[in-house]
């Protein structure tokens, strides 16, 4: 991977260019844009759904999305044949990419194997404390919420980073996902440095409160700004290991949540039968799903959602809102290129095309009215 950011960038956002009469056809005449668009377009066939593999977990984290709402009460289906039948049915209805999650999927490796054999593109969200067999060729996202002292406090797990690296350093499947909370921004550099020293790849997420959460992990406008600057600094400092883009930083640290910026496209907020509203399902560990609750991180407060998984679908789906200028479209392409590198096994990220963190505000106003008008989840 060869990420290049040409100059130090600051958290101050470049104003998105005013609409200048650009058409999509004009924008993609630029050779760099045309080449990158052709590259990412090859992955438009990805159709995602997510699956909670088990209600069991080996740790208890503050702010955990899984142990919120009804899904934690689902009865686990442990029969591999039931999972095989589900995967075959999913394939039949057009699903090409699976995200296996909650509570801790590494505790049911035999089910992961079954899924992988039926639908070979996908990713697993794990705490990284139990190594997933190499025969499961999905991307593996290992959640990092700070240094060991912080993890001990918020996740009740000892020596977490060391154990995660023992399991996944030098594993081509692994991407470590550092979630910025209000409390752990300052320690992120040391953690990323440690991961980078072992050759681990890192991407970023931003803590997104579950419904009703009011604890110390929630962000403030000041901590979001601090997070953005830190993300940009780390991207510049560790270009080989940090898989991210300046626009990703801008989007995920905006004062407005992803839903408020772009109007979420998951069924929970999108009752229509178009795009994700038509195809996406979020299965619980009893193999049922509920349309009204279906999104990539259920029970997250949509008004606070800045989750990396959510952005991967929500920002990507809003290509039409990023054609006001070549620079804004480059920023969108960087975002999609980052998303694919983080989620799709074998996809290699290119250089970021847009070196400055363009404001998402213009994209916000290009949909039906203003995303703010969509209101919050409830």
């Amino acid at each position: 991977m060869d990420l290049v950011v040409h100059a130090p960038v600051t958290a101050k956002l470049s104003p998105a260019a005013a609409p200048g009469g650009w058409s999509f056809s004009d924008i993609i005449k630029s050779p760099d844009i045309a080449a990158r668009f052709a590259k990412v377009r090859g992955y438009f066939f990805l159709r995602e759904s997510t699956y909670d593999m088990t209600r069991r977990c080996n740790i208890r984290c503050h702010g955990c999305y899984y142990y919120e709402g009804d899904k934690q009460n689902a009865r686990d289906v442990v029969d591999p044949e039931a999972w095989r039948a589900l995967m075959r049915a999913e394939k039949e209805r057009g699903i090409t990419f699976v995200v296996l999650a909650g509570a801790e999927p590494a505790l049911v490796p035999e089910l992961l194997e079954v899924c992988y054999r039926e639908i070979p593109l996908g990713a697993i969200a794990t705490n990284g404390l139990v190594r997933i067999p190499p025969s499961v060729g999905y991307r593996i996202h290992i959640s990092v919420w700070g240094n060991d002292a912080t993890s001990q406090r918020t996740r009740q797990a000892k020596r977490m980073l060391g154990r995660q690296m023992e399991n996944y350093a030098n594993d081509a499947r692994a991407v470590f996902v550092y979630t910025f909370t209000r409390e752990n921004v300052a320690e992120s550099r040391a953690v990323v440095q440690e991961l980078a020293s072992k050759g681990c790849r890192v991407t970023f997420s931003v803590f997104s409160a579950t419904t009703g959460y009011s604890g110390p992990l929630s962000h403030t406008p000041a901590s979001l700004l601090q997070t953005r600057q830190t993300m940009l600094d780390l991207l510049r400092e560790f270009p080989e290991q940090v898989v991210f883009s300046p626009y990703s930083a801008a989007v995920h640290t905006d004062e407005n949540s992803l839903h408020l910026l772009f109007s979420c496209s998951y069924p929970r907020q999108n009752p229509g039968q178009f795009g994700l509203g038509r195809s996406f399902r979020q299965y619980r560990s009893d193999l049922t799903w509920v349309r009204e609750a279906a999104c990539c991180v259920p029970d997250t407060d949509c008004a606070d959602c800045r989750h990396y998984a959510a952005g991967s679908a929500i920002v990507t789906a809003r290509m039409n809102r990023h054609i006001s200028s070549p620079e804004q479209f480059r920023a969108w392409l960087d975002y999609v290129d980052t998303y694919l590198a983080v989620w799709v096994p074998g996809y290699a990220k290119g250089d970021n095309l847009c070196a400055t963190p363009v404001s998402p505000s213009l994209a916000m106003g290009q949909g039906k009215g203003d995303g703010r008008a969509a209101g919050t989840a409830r």
Partner: protein
Amino acid sequence: MSQTQNGSMERRIAEILIQELKLENVTPDTFDVTTDLVKELGIDSMDLTTVVLVLQGEYKVKFDEDSYPSLTTVRAIAAQVKQLQGAAG
């Protein structure tokens, strides 16, 4: 707009679809303008968005995001373009 003009627009939209989506075994002349693009051709929302963006440049119109789900056939797209052109005066 006359029936001939409608047919011409539908043919051009079919041509753009074929070109953008690299559809095989079909030409603008043989494209069934009533084919459901999503259900019958399996076109996904991102591909449809790409086509919409090209059409916006071609016909100098702006599709409302909420109208995307209704753009199910070439005929429906042509009708939408015509309506937008009429609205623009």
